[in-house]
């Protein structure tokens, strides 16, 4: 685990997990949901916990909300330890996966509930509800029962309800997973807008890598109760430090190469073909010798000159995708390699399976993995 430390740019973090461990059950049935996890989430940040189911992302969210308590470690909110506090004493609100709207209350009643529980005056509650309804563009539905709403509308009410008390941090537990694709895309943009307008820190849990890349300021990729990598979407995508991260996010090519002795910090790797290219290193110490590297399909192209060709192989398959085309290669050493090239008006489809071709790789496209 190696958080990259970029979080503490703004002084004290909005939320911080310090060496948090969470174990469910006891004896032989013991399950370690989180294993010594530390992370700092900054003010106004859209922070995403990304990982497959069972990776501990929801557990971390529930620890911040207060529905679970850490077995070990601390949860800090604005520098204060909130680990012992029950959920109703934490200035943190949650948007639940199934929305959990109160079925016996109107839309307005749901949205005003938090402020009412904070003993705000009726006037204040009413004003806040009006403001929230405007924010999520649902003014005309104030007196509806929540059962009369569509999925997308319920989603907005859940958001408005969680935002109304102006929490320090908003927690979102896979809130878009129940929506259809089109609505999900709309809500992604909507969420980003709400975050900008309210200036509240969002902690977003998802297993959808595309959703994470689209919305987040930073992403933490999790697996089996640990954070593998934290970084901006572009960092994570272009420079995955781990095989799992590289595999989980986007499509990628794995290659074997040899890391050469470093000269003045710049790392270079040598491919079996003999070509030597500059490479980015993960933030873990790594010694020269055999390494795994990744190259994104769109960071490579079919070489037009002999000089460009870093790799070479046989073209096995050409798959046309409209905006781009995927070229599946079998490299000379037996590995598979995919080249993705954007389709331009003048790009000829003059490559046919069976051809022996060279593959060029963009500068800075080679990323060395930790393992």
């Amino acid at each position, binding site marked *: 685990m190696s958080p990259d430390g970029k979080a503490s740019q703004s002084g004290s973090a909005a939320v911080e997990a310090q060496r948090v461990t969470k174990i469910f059950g006891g004896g032989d049935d013991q399950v370690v949901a989180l294993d010594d996890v530390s992370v700092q989430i900054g003010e106004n940040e859209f922070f995403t916990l990304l990982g497959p189911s069972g990776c501990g992302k929801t557990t971390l969210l529930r620890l911040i909300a207060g529905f679970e308590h850490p077995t070990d470690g601390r949860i800090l909110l604005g520098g204060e330890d909130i680990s012992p506090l029950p959920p*109703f004493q934490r200035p943190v609100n949650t948007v639940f996966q199934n929305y959990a709207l109160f079925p016996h209350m109107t839309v307005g009643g749901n949205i005003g509930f938090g402020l009412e*529980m904070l003993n705000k005056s009726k006037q204040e509650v009413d004003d806040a509800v009006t403001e929230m309804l405007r924010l999520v563009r649902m003014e005309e539905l104030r007196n509806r029962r929540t059962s009369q709403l569509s999925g997308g509308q319920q989603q907005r009410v859940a958001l408005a309800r969680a935002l109304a008390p102006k929490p320090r941090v908003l927690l979102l537990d896979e809130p878009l997973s129940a929506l259809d694709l089109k609505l999900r895309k709309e809500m992604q943009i909507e969420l980003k807008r709400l975050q900008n307008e309210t200036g509240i820190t969002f902690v977003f849990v998802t297993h959808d890598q595309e959703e994470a890349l689209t919305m987040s300021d930073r992403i933490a990729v999790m697996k089996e109760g640990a954070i593998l990598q934290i970084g901006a979407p572009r960092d994570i995508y272009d420079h995955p430090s781990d095989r799992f991260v590289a595999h989980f996010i986007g499509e990628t090519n794995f290659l074997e190469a040899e890391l050469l002795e470093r000269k003045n910090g710049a790392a270079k790797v040598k491919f079996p073909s003999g070509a030597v290219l500059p490479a980015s290193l993960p933030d873990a110490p790594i010694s020269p010798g055999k390494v795994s590297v990744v190259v994104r399909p769109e960071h490579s192209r079919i070489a037009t000159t002999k000089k460009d060709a870093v790799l070479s192989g046989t073209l096995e398959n050409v798959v046309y995708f409209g905006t781009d085309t995927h070229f599946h290669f079998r490299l000379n050493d037996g590995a598979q390699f995919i080249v993705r090239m954007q389709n331009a008006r003048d790009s000829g489809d003059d490559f046919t399976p069976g051809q022996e071709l060279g593959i060029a790789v963009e500068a800075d496209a080679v990323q060395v993995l930790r393992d």
Partner: protein
Amino acid sequence: MADAVTQVDTPVRGASSPSPKGRGFDVKRLPGFATVAWMCLLVLYAPMLVLVLFSVNDNRSVTIWTKFSWRWYEEVINNEGIQHATVLSLKVAVVAMVVATAVATMAALATTRTRAYRGLPVVYGIINQPLMVPEIVTAVATLSFFALIKQATGVTGLGYLILAHTVFCIPFAYMPIRARLEDMDLTLEQASADLYATPWRTFRRVTFPLLLPGIFAGAMLAFVISLDDVVISLLVAGPGESTLPIYIIGQLRRGVTPEMNAVSTIFLAVSILLVTFFFVLARARK
């Protein structure tokens, strides 16, 4: 399976067409199924029909029909013994219903809204005990237990009967309340806590309002069960504490009169009304 049948109705009825995949065995198509079903219904409901019919018969005999008349209902209304027994039955049933429902609600919360603990199945068993122990055993046990107390303290009165009714009504009130709690989405209560509601306010504003249909259903069931009870009441009731069923049994010893038919019909109507209400509530807002 029944659903599938109603959905695809007509084409399936003709048994000649090969049944679609996954349909399998259908009880409804067994030979004689309809006959047996009608026989069962007849045996169940024919006696009641006869009862109702002869309650509006002018003749003193309950086997010979003469003409329609409300006279037995008038006699029921003017019968002081029936009046007294009805008031007593209602008194006992109302108190037993209120107390049993309150206890059952708390028991249901304690068995569904806590972390599972060792011995929870035993708790279920204890709460549901009156459903499993033969009623006569409970009745005899209660009788001798109360006799012991009466002897020790000298206190007598209707309290004993009410207490006995309350106790055996608890499991009946408990069942629908617990079912409702188990159906309820736990994240609603979490959402409430997340929105700054203390546990008590979460109960008052979220759990309780959503539980109300279950509580009403439980209360209704407890009321009917108490009103209906014979065995325990027969043994526990003191002198002059005849509930309506006990009174009816007492009268029947002297022979069946149309008056009894009339009381029973009223009783039946009230029970059907309450049970219908119970089902409506149990299905409400599901």
